[in-house]
């Protein structure tokens, strides 16, 4: 059943684009106004024109092994249920009853045959989300109520190598088109081993009083902060400072439609921060097999100094194996959900070391992340000052460093210490806010500086 066909109210009424976006976000010049981190009107537009339109990460397939397994998460501020179906597919439904809108599932995960709203007892099948019945159903039958016209609203769902994404936009491109050539790089983490990847159990959630873009931008391409912000953590974990990224022999920044990945080719630079020799050893032993599988070049990236954001708010760090989503909660707050990803075939003791290591470094108790949260909160909060809000923020590092003849996929730039991915991220952000429909979103690939 297509739950989306029947009620025209379900089409989002599009609000006109804000008029001053070119003034506050000029990526040709690499200039940005702090207003983009503060303004509630901009935030409302983001919910509609970015989060209700883009493909958003909702789950890893390994979190839902059996039919009826579910988890709850959110897409922007829309709460959703992600449910494994009897035919082994995964469906995503709004976690909101189509009667009065109450949440139909309050648990973060579990297994269920259906979901029953606490308010008036409307009940929905976990398989398909159809309306099955309700409290005092006879009254509905007497008023010729057609149950088949009501069900949990369904999103479009697609997976890439275990990662499940969803969108509520019927005009969005396919996930394959949406991710474009960036999947070639995502394979470094998702497909380095023949068994594929899985999430370890549990999810750590925290809140940071920052704008969601600051966090997403940090992972899209800001290793520049690593050597300075994280000096204390590196000294604690490694007994010395962070590697001098500027002196690494070969590193790149690549982006595509706002997604970005910055990476060195040093094999275990990120992984080393976990301070677990066995993890470095595991990666070194695995590397020749990765070279057979993905080629020599990508085998040098499996735990390298690197970070990745899939536009708009899904990020991960190869090596530390932390995967996270920055859930927007108003212009000045995010909820951070973190998971740990590992190779399914890795030995259990290696998985345990990654679980502990990821939490030790990148989590609310992580020695690295503590310093990030602090920076991001004050980048946001300082923008409450009206003069500060209109200060030009410089996002110009690495202008004119694009490699025209690179054989690597995507828009390729020289070096990791480069703000090209941040520029591409904010350009995409602006393009989406300005485009009335997906068809109006310009293709900037090959033209960004």
């Amino acid at each position, binding site marked *: 059943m297509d739950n989306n066909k029947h009620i025209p109210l379900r089409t989002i009424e599009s609000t006109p684009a804000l008029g001053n976006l070119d003034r506050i976000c000029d990526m040709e010049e690499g200039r940005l106004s702090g207003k983009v981190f503060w303004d509630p009107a901009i935030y409302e537009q983001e919910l509609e024109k970015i989060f209700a339109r883009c493909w958003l990460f909702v789950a890893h397939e390994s979190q839902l092994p059996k039919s009826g397994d579910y988890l709850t998460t959110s897409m922007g501020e829309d709460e959703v249920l992600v449910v494994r179906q009897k035919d082994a597919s995964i469906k995503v439904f709004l976690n909101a009853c189509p009667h009065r809108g109450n949440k139909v599932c*309050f*648990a*973060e*995960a*579990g*297994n269920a045959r259906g979901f029953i709203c606490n308010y008036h007892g409307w009940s929905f099948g976990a398989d398909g989300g159809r309306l099955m019945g309700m409290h005092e159903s006879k009254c509905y039958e007497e008023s010729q109520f057609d149950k088949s016209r009501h069900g949990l609203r369904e999103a479009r769902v697609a997976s890439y190598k275990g990662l499940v994404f969803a969108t509520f936009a019927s005009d969005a491109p396919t996930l394959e088109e949406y991710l474009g050539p960036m999947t070639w790089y995502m394979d470094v983490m998702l497909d380095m081993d023949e068994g594929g990847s899985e999430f*370890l*159990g*549990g*999810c*750590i*959630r*925290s*809140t*940071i*009083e920052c704008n969601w873009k600051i966090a997403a931008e940090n992972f899209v391409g800001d290793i520049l902060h690593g050597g300075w*912000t994280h*000096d*204390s*953590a590196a*000294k*604690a*974990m490694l007994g010395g400072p962070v590697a001098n990224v500027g002196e690494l022999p070969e590193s790149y920044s690549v982006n595509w439609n706002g997604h970005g990945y910055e990476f060195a080719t040093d094999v275990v630079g990120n992984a080393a921060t976990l*301070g677990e020799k066995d993890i470095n050893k595991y990666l070194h032993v695995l590397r020749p097999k990765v070279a057979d599988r993905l080629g020599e070049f990508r085998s040098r990236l499996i735990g390298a100094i690197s970070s990745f954001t899939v536009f708009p708010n899904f990020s991960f760090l190869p090596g530390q194996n932390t995967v996270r989503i920055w859930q927007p909660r108003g212009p000045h707050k995010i*909820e951070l959900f*973190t*998971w*740990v990803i590992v190779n399914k075939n890795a030995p259990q003791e290696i998985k*345990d070391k990654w*679980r*502990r290591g990821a*939490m*030790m470094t990148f*989590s*609310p*108790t992580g*020695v690295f*992340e*503590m*310093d990030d*949260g*602090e*920076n991001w*909160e004050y980048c946001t909060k300082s923008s409450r000052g009206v003069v500060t809000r209109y200060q030009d923020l410089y996002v110009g590092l690495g202008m004119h460093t694009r490699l025209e003849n690179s054989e690597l996929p995507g828009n390729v730039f020289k070096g990791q210490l480069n703000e090209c991915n941040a520029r591409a991220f904010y350009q995409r952000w602006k393009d989406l806010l300005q485009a009335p429909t997906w068809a109006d979103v310009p293709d900037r690939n090959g033209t960004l500086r």
Partner: protein
Amino acid sequence: MTHEQQDSLVSVEETRRVEQFLLREARLLDGECWDAWLHGLSEAIHYWMPGIENRRREDKSGPYRLEHMAFFDDGMRELKRRVARFKQPSAWAENPPTRNVHLISNIEVYAGPAPGEYLAYSCFINVRSRGLDEHHQIAGRREDVLRLEADGLKLLKRKILIPNAMLLCKNINTFL
């Protein structure tokens, strides 16, 4: 921490000694006396604060599991690394310092699982302030095993449970 009480009481002096240990520990943390705090831990410490999962009552998985993600799942090596970060001059986010109060209450002391060990339950409220206006409060329950070692009473195991399935602040830059 819903044990049926078959736990056996210990002497008033022993109870007082364990209570004093827990209260002193709180004062050491508030004073950033990291080395003295570490000295109160057994080399075999397991310091564990699982992430809390918001699951239904009938879900057999329960609200936390040893093999799931945790805020802390540390031995002595990890705790020393955390302390090493606090002590770095480049721990920018700790200067000006975070100001802490650890309130400890509801202490119950029983004989531990092995001779020379004590089982102690307690509750805590940790209040942290930073800058002018930051105020973060975390409350929870702890289940500790303490052990008499050659150089005194040491914390051997700690399990920390908070009621929150989502931490309502950016970090936990202290010990609980």
